[in-house]
């Protein structure tokens, strides 16, 4: 399978996008080793098109002009992880929920910690909005890209002051 990586300069630092021709596979704040970095986003390659669409949508998001993403995703995880990620997608722009809320929504009230872990394993940040999940106490919780970025994203969506 043809995978490509693309480095996008975002207002919060470099973002690394990885796509196959089927869809976006990951979006991280760090580079993934072993996947070639595209030199430009020109050409008819399927993965390039996905990367280009993702970059455009993300640019709009950072300008505050986009709330939902349309780019197709190509992610696989365990059944549990996928059920958590599905719930993440349902959190509306500008809202935050707690880890407990997610656990309740997948009808596994006691799996709060597992939800936290699955949340942390989310391969596609921003688009699958794991940053909108915060601790029940109201504190930020954790974030793989660093708490400053989590805070900045929530501030962008103006729910956290």
């Amino acid at each position, binding site marked *: 399978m043809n995978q490509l990586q693309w480095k996008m300069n975002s207002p919060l630092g470099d973002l*690394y996008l990885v796509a196959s021709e089927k869809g976006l596979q*990951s979006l*991280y704040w*760090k*580079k*993934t*080793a*072993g996947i*070639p*970095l595209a*030199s430009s986003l020109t050409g008819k390659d399927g993965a390039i098109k996905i990367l280009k669409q993702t970059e455009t949508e993300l640019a709009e998001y950072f300008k505050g002009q986009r709330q939902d993403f349309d780019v197709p995703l190509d992610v696989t995880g365990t059944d549990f992880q996928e059920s958590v990620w599905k719930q993440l997608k349902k959190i509306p722009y500008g809202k935050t929920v707690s880890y407990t809320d997610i656990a309740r929504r997948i009808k596994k009230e006691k799996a709060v910690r597992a939800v936290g872990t699955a949340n942390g*394993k989310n*391969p596609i940040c921003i688009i699958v909005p794991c940053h909108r999940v915060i601790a029940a106490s109201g504190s930020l919780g954790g974030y793989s890209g660093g708490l400053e970025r989590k805070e900045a994203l929530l501030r962008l969506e103006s729910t956290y002051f």
Partner: protein
Amino acid sequence: MKKDDIFYNAMLARDPRFDGKFFIGVKTTGIYCRPICPAKPKRENVEFFSNHLAAEKAGYRPCLRCRPESAPQSPAWIGKSALVRRAIKMIDKIETLEFNEDQFAELFGVSARHLRRLFIEEVGKTPKQLSFENRLNLSRQLISETALPITEVAFAAGFNSIRRFNDAFKERFKKSPSEIRRKPVKNESTLSIRLAYRPPFDFNGLLHFYRSHAVGQLEWFEGGVMHRIVEVNGKVGQITLSDLPDESCVKLEIDFPDTTALHTIISRVRSLLDLDSDPVIIANVLETDKDMKALLKKHPGIRLPSSWDPFEVVVAAILGQVVSVERGRALVNDLIELAGSDSGLLRDGKSVRLFPTPAQVIKTDLKSLKTTTRRKETLVALSRALINGELSLEPTQDVDSFVEKILSIPGIGPWTASYMALKALRHTDAFPATDLIIARAIAEHPKTKFESFSPWRGYVAALLWREYSHVLKKTRRKK
């Protein structure tokens, strides 16, 4: 048949097994070539040289077609004095781009003036000129094989001024950098270059070894391809290695943020894959024994596996004492997680840590590492000796005195010392006879006189490991 006729026939056949073993000077053009060069000069117009330095000393300049500087280097290049031989090896490996003759001479305990005189006598060039030429050679390889912008090429070759680079390049190759450029310039993140070897080349054997000794998350394998995350001078990147048997070359893809590290990366890869080895010389010695001849026939072109960094080998050797290869690997992985710094790269969404430096090892609390206290103490003592400069892992040092020094560290016995000499120093004559697999293999060949393979006993060890490591595993499982 005269010796020169053998050379001439090898040249006509363009036989890659002779690549780097001799060079052809063409009197009519003043150019020297590799045996594999497509140019076919007449017999009366050529003379032969045993190494590229001799050809240059006689006033020839390198061919633009076959690029003699990209031939495999001579492993047994015989300078008149051991000092010059060691110094030349050192120049090829040197990691910084600034070359200070006084400091360099100090490494060998002689004055710069004395070393210069020896060099002029034997090589026809000073150490500084040689180091300078190595960098120009690298720049030519980068210009003709990659799309790296010429400015970057100049930096990679250690130049700060493009004009000086252009002048020096033209002086050596009689053409300007832009005249040699074939590919359109693109600022691609990955550079791809070819490193020549002399066939046969047991790439699969090397891969098999590195796969079973994979270092933490830093090395991984897909089919016939090896990936490795590398750190040079505080910067992190990635390399990918694959074999191109039809061209007698290894393809090296480099994704690294700093081009000035290319020289270091290339020379480390050359030793990682033992590319400068000469399989014919080794086979000649090993084939004097019937059993070894049969083994070599099964694994032609056996090479000495080592590692990206000698410190990784010595640490793995200590943590691997008495335990299985798998367990040893797991311990190395735990140590990396405990003491290594973040590489800034991800694999499967997880941050990859770099191999710890000796300084990081002594600063880390090793309590949670699941090995004996004794081995932890050995690890710390070794790291400390490396930091203090009491011990070095430099491959050009005298092996006997290295073994003596390392044996004085508590917890290091003859097996570990000899294993380290072989894997870290790449000493071709080290033979860890007490190794579990080697000892068993020796018992399988009662008639073989192993001491007769000197100075290539390291290759015999590699051959025995290649043949017997999985056999031993299988019989163990049966129990």
